[in-house]
């Protein structure tokens, strides 16, 4: 997030696009609802499903999955035509606006309504006016923007809109991606990325490598310079036989990655699979070596939340059996492979992180324990940074990028006539390793389901609660039907937490060309009635 959770009361309006906030980031969802209901703030929601926030929105736009760029361009078209943009801000703080103008030309409300499947083009105009009138307006998004082959374009479009309205660098404004996992921000900050060293320093830049070679005392040896493989590329390389070994710490790609069949096939081909986890997950079952690690309440250390806040986790309970801290296990492997590591506590690792991660430089272990600083925090006397790009953009000027709408990789056809979108539900999390092993959460929602509109269900002669077959070009699953007022007709939704009815047997592994994110949020599928005797045993 460019801004902070604590700034939500300062926002005059919210645009929530591609985020089912009240289920996936519920505490933030409630805070936004509070502002809208008790303090009369404006809310525009764009989402293929009539999510909870849609019910209280001033304008709700039920857009087709994969049409975010179009709707955002549509808002900007109206804002441009009606002269509602922040000219002074654009002149002073941004560049590249001229290049955007001609591209926006054709995104008229009518054209955009056509792409997005909206009945009423005037809703786009109405929404754009609301968003432009309220200052500051905060934009919130999540995987509903990024998990597309046009994910990077979607992200850039959100920035275009917010710069055009002068909302970046303002308290209560900003472009606010909601991070889906407790430490996904920190894992990125720490360089658990194939092309980036800690603090997003590209590995391809020789000066960066030199700096780390020195800091890590590599005496003569050099860091690999070629950016590595991303998660989906790893699976493909393994399937081809190019990748021979994988070391997996606390991940469950068999359930979390798209196109499950392909992932299992790839993993089975490996000569060595090391899995370090707290449970014998679907992935761990395929491993050659399984290393038991501590769960979050069994260790101390820092994690960084969606607003870049570095928070301290205390050790609450003792681990079972012989389970060990993840850092301890990694160190043991490192020492056996010739590294002279001698960390005795997480604190020592954190103090080293500070020296190579400029955005964390001012956060000492002690400070992390006592306060909750937001990075960038370059020095020990620096208070941290609640709002990014305040005086100027990190790169100097805010850069507009002209973006065209491109359709998703797979469109519906006669054979696969429905659009499948995937995501999470309130009660469960990711691959279910944690939430489905928690008694109350498991009892609340024990099974997977497919959510479908009443109209679609009627057309297929299906009733609520019956088991149905869902297939895509990649695979097929059996799953319980849930008729719901939320999806728009021709769109169905499956949460991906349930391995026995795994959404990712259906999803497509098409990737965004730049950031390699898979297109989880849209593929074509078909739903069929199960014939008698075909039973509902699958889940």
């Amino acid at each position, binding site marked *: 997030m460019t801004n902070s959770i604590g700034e939500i009361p300062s926002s005059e309006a919210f645009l929530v696009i591609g985020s089912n906030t009240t289920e996936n980031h*519920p505490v933030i969802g409630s805070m936004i609802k509070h502002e809208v209901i008790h303090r009369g703030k404006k809310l525009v929601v764009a989402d293929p499903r009539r999510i909870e926030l849609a019910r209280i929105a001033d304008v709700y736009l039920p857009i087709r999955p994969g049409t975010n760029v179009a709707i955002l361009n549509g808002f900007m078209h109206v804002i441009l035509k009606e002269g509602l943009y922040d000219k002074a801000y654009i002149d002073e703080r941004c560049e590249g606006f001229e290049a955007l103008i001609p591209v926006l030309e054709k995104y008229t409300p009518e054209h955009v309504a056509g792409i997005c499947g909206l009945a009423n083009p005037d809703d786009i105009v109405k929404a754009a006016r609301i968003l432009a009138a309220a200052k500051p307006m905060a934009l919130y998004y999540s995987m509903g923007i990024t998990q597309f082959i046009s994910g990077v374009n979607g992200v850039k479009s959100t920035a275009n809109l917010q710069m055009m309205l002068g909302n970046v660098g303002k308290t209560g404004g900003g472009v606010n991606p909601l991070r889906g996992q407790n*430490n996904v921000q920190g894992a990125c900050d720490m*360089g*658990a990325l194939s092309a980036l060293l800690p603090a997003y320093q590209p590995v391809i830049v020789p000066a960066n490598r030199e700096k780390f070679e020195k800091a890590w005392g590599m005496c003569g040896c050099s860091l690999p310079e070629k950016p590595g493989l991303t998660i989906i590329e790893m699976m493909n390389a393994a399937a081809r036989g190019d990748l*021979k070994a994988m070391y997996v710490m606390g*991940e469950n790609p068999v359930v979390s990655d798209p196109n499950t069949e392909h992932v299992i096939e790839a993993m089975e081909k490996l000569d060595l699979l090391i899995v370090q986890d707290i449970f014998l997950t679907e992935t761990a079952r395929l491993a050659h070596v399984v290393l038991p690690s501590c769960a979050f309440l069994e260790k101390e250390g*820092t994690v960084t939340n969606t607003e870049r806040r570095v928070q301290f986790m205390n050790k609450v309970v003792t681990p079972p059996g012989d389970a060990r801290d993840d*850092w301890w296990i*990694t160190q043991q492997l490192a020492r056996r492979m010739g590294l002279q590591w001698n960390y005795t506590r997480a604190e020592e690792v954190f103090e080293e992180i500070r020296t190579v991660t400029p955005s964390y430089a001012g956060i000492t272990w002690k400070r992390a324990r006592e306060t909750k600083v937001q990075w960038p925090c370059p020095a020990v006397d620096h208070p941290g940074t609640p709002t990014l790009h305040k005086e100027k953009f990190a790169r100097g000027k805010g850069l507009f990028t002209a973006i065209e709408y491109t359709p998703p990789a797979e469109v519906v056809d006669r054979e696969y006539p429905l659009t499948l979108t995937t995501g999470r539900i309130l009660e469960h999390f990711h691959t279910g390793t944690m939430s489905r092993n928690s008694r109350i959460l498991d009892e609340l929602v024990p099974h997977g389901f497919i959510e479908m509109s009443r109209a679609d269900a009627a057309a297929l002669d299906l009733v609520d609660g019956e088991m149905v077959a869902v297939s895509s070009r990649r695979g097929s699953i059996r799953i319980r039907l849930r008729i719901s007022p939320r999806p728009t007709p021709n769109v169905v939704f499956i949460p991906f937490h349930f391995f026995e009815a795994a959404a990712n047997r259906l999803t497509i592994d098409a990737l965004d060309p730049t950031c390699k994110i898979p297109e989880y949020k849209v593929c074509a599928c078909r739903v069929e009635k199960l014939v008698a005797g075909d039973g509902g045993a699958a889940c």
Partner: protein
Amino acid sequence: MNESIRLTVDGRVVSGQKGQTILEVARNAGLDIPTLCHHPRISRTGACRICLVRVNGTALKTACTEPAADGMNVVSEDAELASVRRSILEMLLAEGHHNCLFCDANGDCEFQDLCHRYGIEEPRQPLPGRRRTTDTTSSKGLRRNEDRCVLCGRCVKACGEVQMLGVWDFTGRGDRTELTADCGGPVGESSCALCGTCAQLCPTGALTLQPVNGTAPTWETRKQTSVCIYCGVGCQIDFHTDSKGRLLYANGNENGPNNGHLCVKGRFGFDFVQHPERIRTPLVRRDGKLVEASWEEALDYAAARLSEIKAANGPDSIAGLASAKVTNEENYLFQKFMRTGVGTNNVDHCARL
């Protein structure tokens, strides 16, 4: 904008800001005024009148709602105020059915504390007590025993102002007043999202959380703060454990980005940590089966195989997946290991998934 004011509370000059209540100014100055319906996370209520104070020698005002004013003279307790408080407490005690022995909140109850503080024993005159709703089973997250309800309305506001679902409301009047979930019916069938905030804010044992993993007397539990493992909001959570280290229940920590609020996952989704199926020893595959091994065996084997594969096929034939569920320190060491120990940039995690 902020106009500062000075007033006297119990003979001490204290300062505050215009717009603050007497209670806020007094508490900031470290002075104690008893309250029951007040809670800093919800709007001002003024329902219980426990916080009555004497203003400028005569008027009795509820400190939790009365704006502090410059030059005010406040007395937080005298004989009359104490006796008013006592009779309120006695009435509440007589009206309900407070059997502390069976109460989840015993030892951690604001009402019990006040009764101790004001030396309340058996109510002097019994009131025509009326049993209200008890429902400890319909909801997977909440237990309700309204015989312990003091009608403070905190739960109503917790749901209506914090969680924003408005499940609870009062119905009826006078001694017939009681809570209702949605428009009647058991709370387990209401629109409740099981955030547990109403139970966290309930000052008594009228609304409590369903036990996740067992219970223990409140005075035997320990509390330690950590961060929720689920989404990226990073709610801070106070986890309570019993003397054997068993995880019991979780409350939102008010100093976190969540201001004390939680969702159902943070509130109830932690017992996986103590699940019997946790892996307890390293496992190594032998003859196609995963069998238990010592750390030495497992690590030696893993490292030897990694080294062999690296020697035979080069470092880029090896890849590592770090994790968005472990700490910064662990992710940092993991990528450092892949880059320096293995010698590849093939390191990623599920940021995109």
